[in-house]
């Protein structure tokens, strides 16, 4: 009964969100995000048909669509990065390097784990695999948000909503997957499904209508003098450090 209620609520909210996105022309501004919502809507309907007509096939359909959704989710993070940092090449470069470093680190960890236990891949269940991938996704979002906040990148209401909603959804999903038992409908099973309704409600509030992201004024003088800016910052920090040292030793 509760599962049915969650399922129907998700469908209604997704349809409503897509209708709003269509009327507010958000579809053209955030095509990947709208594509993701459409995909999730279609996958839910498709899964329910498979569950009804061919239950044996349901497991493989469920996990195939789940991993396709995960890949599309990564694309949403890329869309956020692209739209938010279009006017900030410096921060975009920083974010790229940080994300690349994290990706290499995750890859190295996976290779090391497979090297030490060659049967690991065969023994890993689909939920464990999803949890591992979602964890990498969660760490990437943490890194991206940290870089964006450090450089005080201004966000429009829509983009902020997409990032907050998707981030909270991934965070919640990782926690649920950690506690989710292999079988049965327990608290974490419902929390896992219900967290998506919270995310959809948040998206609906933030994406009710289109609001453009603030555009920065180009400061050409500063744009060309990164070395000068960095040297001045380091000098000021060193001055403060000396100031602290002299005061305490007085």
């Amino acid at each position, binding site marked *: 009964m509760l599962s049915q209620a969650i399922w129907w609520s998700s469908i209604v909210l997704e349809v409503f969100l897509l209708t709003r996105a269509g009327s507010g022309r958000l579809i053209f501004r955030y095509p990947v995000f709208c594509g993701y919502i459409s995909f999730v809507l279609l996958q839910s309907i498709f899964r329910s048909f498979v569950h009804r007509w061919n239950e044996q096939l349901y497991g493989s359909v469920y996990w195939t669509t789940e991993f396709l959704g995960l890949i599309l989710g990564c694309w949403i993070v890329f869309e956020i990065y692209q739209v938010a940092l279009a006017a*900030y*090449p*410096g*921060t975009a*470069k920083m974010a790229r*390097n940080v994300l690349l470093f994290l990706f290499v680190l995750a890859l190295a960890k996976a290779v090391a784990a497979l090297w030490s236990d060659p049967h690991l891949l065969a023994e890993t269940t689909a939920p464990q695999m999803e*949890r*591992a991938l*979602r*964890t990498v996704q*969660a*760490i990437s979002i*943490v890194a991206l*948000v940290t870089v*964006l*906040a*450090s*450089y*005080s*990148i*201004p*966000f429009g209401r829509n983009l*902020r909503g997409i*990032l*907050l909603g998707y*981030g*909270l959804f*991934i*965070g*919640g*999903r*990782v*926690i649920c997957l*950690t506690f989710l038992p292999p079988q049965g409908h327990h608290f974490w099973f419902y929390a896992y499904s219900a967290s998506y309704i919270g995310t959809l409600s948040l998206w609906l509030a933030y994406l009710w209508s289109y*609001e453009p*992201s*603030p555009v*920065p*004024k180009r*400061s050409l003088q*500063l*744009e*060309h003098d*990164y*070395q000068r*800016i*960095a040297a001045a*910052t*380091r000098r000021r*920090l*060193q001055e*403060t*450090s000396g*100031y*602290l040292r*002299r*005061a*305490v*030793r*007085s």
Partner: protein
Amino acid sequence: MIAFSSLIAGVALLLLLMAAATKGWLASRQLGARSAASEEDTSEPCPEEFITRVFSRADWEFVRGLKAGGIERLFEQERKKVALVWVRQTSALIRKVISEHARAARQSKNLEFSTEINIFAEFLMLMAVCGILSVAVQIAGPLWLGVLAHFAQTLSQRVTKLQESFQAGVLANAREAGSA
């Protein structure tokens, strides 16, 4: 182990986004516009002579010479307050330097990753020093900070000397073993 690290990542993400939402880190603030809080940050640091006086023991010796317990306590309390305001002001100044740097660097096409990491590490170290200083002032008071700093320096010198003599001993033992 993997489950635990997943849990940590999930909780960290939720906390970070909640903080971003409540503190407005990703808000659509007007670029170049400054809030009242940042206006406060722009104030220049206290003159150095004034600060050396706050941490100096000369005035304390004078007050102690008066042999009035009430004045001594009041003096200590006031000095502690002034020292804490100074630490807060200094950490605000450091934050201002970094936020100005971030505002300038974010549009730069030739930004260097290694330079940014070094600046960020320097910033974190200075903020940690301010934090430690604040706790030390709360616990020991500004008047004993100089003594504490001197004690820490002497201790670190002793440790360095001990380490050097230990290394010399290890090397001598190795040489003896090699010759035998």
